[in-house]
């Protein structure tokens, strides 16, 4: 492949990547893939990509002006170029969808997530019980030995619905994925919901569950259960994952 053509493809592919990242950043869908904390890094990447695209376009223009020394130059292996199409194709052709119940089969599922630092649990005590999300509840249940203090507290959490055969009648999981750095390390955590009309819920539907907390034993672990007073369906939240 002649050098100038190679440079043009490089420029176009990098531009594609730059636009792809920028559009994901603009739509907020970057958090389907990575922890919110690393979004600034991607922004930095977008800027660097733009600089590279600019440099390549200048180079192409320059080589067009000095026509003669371009002819004999051979480009590096051109197969390198086509691999860069893969992430673009995957990103464009497969609609963006955050991890959901279909990832549970391989990514694992945990009602007892081993989630760290005892100091944050002290803080959690002070937060209003209705402000806590699924992760906060799981943390509290992991770090406190006396769980009776939570019984009867009001809870209001969102998550996607997941049914499992370990659960009783009228019960379902209210699940969230926890992502530390990117979707590759995501794993699901969940609280149990109990609601008379549970069978009307659809798997993977996002719901807001309000009710009072009770402690039940599941697989030899004490886990929080919400006796739901209401289960409302809600749209997929802007940030589907929780970040520890």
């Amino acid at each position: 492949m002649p050098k100038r053509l190679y440079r043009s493809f490089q420029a176009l592919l990098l531009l594609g990547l730059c636009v792809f990242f920028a559009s994901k950043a603009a739509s907020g869908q970057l958090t389907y893939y990575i922890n919110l904390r690393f979004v600034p890094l991607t922004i930095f990447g977008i800027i660097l990509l733009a600089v590279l695209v600019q440099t390549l376009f200048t180079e192409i223009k320059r080589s067009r002006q000095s026509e003669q020394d371009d002819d004999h130059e051979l480009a590096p292996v051109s197969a390198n170029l086509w691999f860069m199409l893969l992430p673009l194709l995957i990103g464009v052709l497969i609609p963006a969808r955050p991890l959901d119940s279909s990832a549970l089969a391989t990514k694992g599922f945990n009602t007892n997530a081993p989630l760290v630092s005892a100091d944050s649990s002290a803080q959690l005590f002070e937060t209003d019980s209705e402000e806590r999300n699924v992760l906060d509840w799981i943390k509290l249940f992991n770090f406190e030995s006396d769980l009776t203090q939570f019984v009867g507290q009001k809870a209001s959490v969102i998550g996607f619905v997941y049914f499992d055969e370990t659960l009783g009648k009228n019960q379902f999981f209210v699940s969230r994925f926890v992502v530390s750095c990117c979707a590759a390390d995501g794993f699901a955590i969940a609280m149990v919901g109990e609601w008379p009309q549970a069978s009307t819920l659809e798997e993977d539907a996002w719901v807001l569950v309000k009710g009072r907390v009770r402690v039940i034993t599941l697989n030899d672990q004490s886990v929080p259960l919400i006796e739901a007073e209401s289960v409302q369906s809600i749209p997929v939240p802007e940030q589907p994952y929780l970040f520890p």
Partner: protein
Amino acid sequence: MQNTTSSPRLLSRTSIITISLVVLSLVVSSMLPAGFFALLWDRLNVFATVFLGIFVEAVPYLLLGTLASGLVEVFLDRDQMSRWISHRPVAAAVGGAFMGMIFPVCECGVVPLTRRLFNKGLPLSAGIAFLLAAPVLNPIVVLSTASAFGWGQMLLWRMGVSLIIAVVVGLVFSVEQNAANVLRPVLTSSHDHDHSLEANASFSEKMRRALLVTADEFFEMGRYLIIGAMLAAALQTFVPQSSLLAIGSGPVTSVLVMLALAILLSICSTVDAFVALGFLGTFSFGSVLSFLVFGPMVDIKSIIMYLQVFRRRSVAYIVAIPFLMSLLAGILFNYLQP
């Protein structure tokens, strides 16, 4: 020119392996009965999300690494390099490992940078020690480890053990006198000429050249990042991770599970501390430490990138020695502080 003939062959071999693995996984998943296509579509979605997760996370770091490589190419010449770096093996290996403290590169970025430094005459032992140490010892990783675990034992041992492993592997390679036995020939015959610079070129001219090298290398290394990320995503989509976690509880098996997970997850070293933190509840200190030490040195995507720079036998050493040493360190810590 002979290099260009060996590269397409290697490409097809790598892609054949990739494709056959993906096909194999698809075949296995197709054995599940009803709702096959719905299931496949679901799996494909998971695959896409995990793949793009790794890719989006890694691209900025790969850009940084290739940019560093481009700057080294243009601003550092061979004479300066030989003045700075000792050629005695121990000093070179230790020096190479400590050099990792100043370059903010993770395991994707370090590969092109190390290759560039070899081109500039860096001794083998120093380069290998740098390759293995830089992803752990660099300032970004130190900060992220500290913010996950605090300024304590975990950070200290992570850096200490990694440093030891890097120096040991560097020393092993110092036995080899001829770099050509370790490194694959570099495919830069045409762009060496292209980027050769007159000594008095202006700064902006130098920057332009550096950015062109960056772009070339981003494509060259990005290709292997993409293959590696796809493999990792395919494995994650079709191999249950939960069963892996269920195996490990003993002082030895738990370390083995963490090492396997380090390879499988293929997450960037700059952020893996936050992931490791999540394991601390179920896994012992030693096992998590082995994950933190081994993960930055070896995972699916870095192995594939190493294969582009080193000969296969060298890659075997670069993978096997850190594996055994991390295993040993993990087991040792499990017995010392269970």
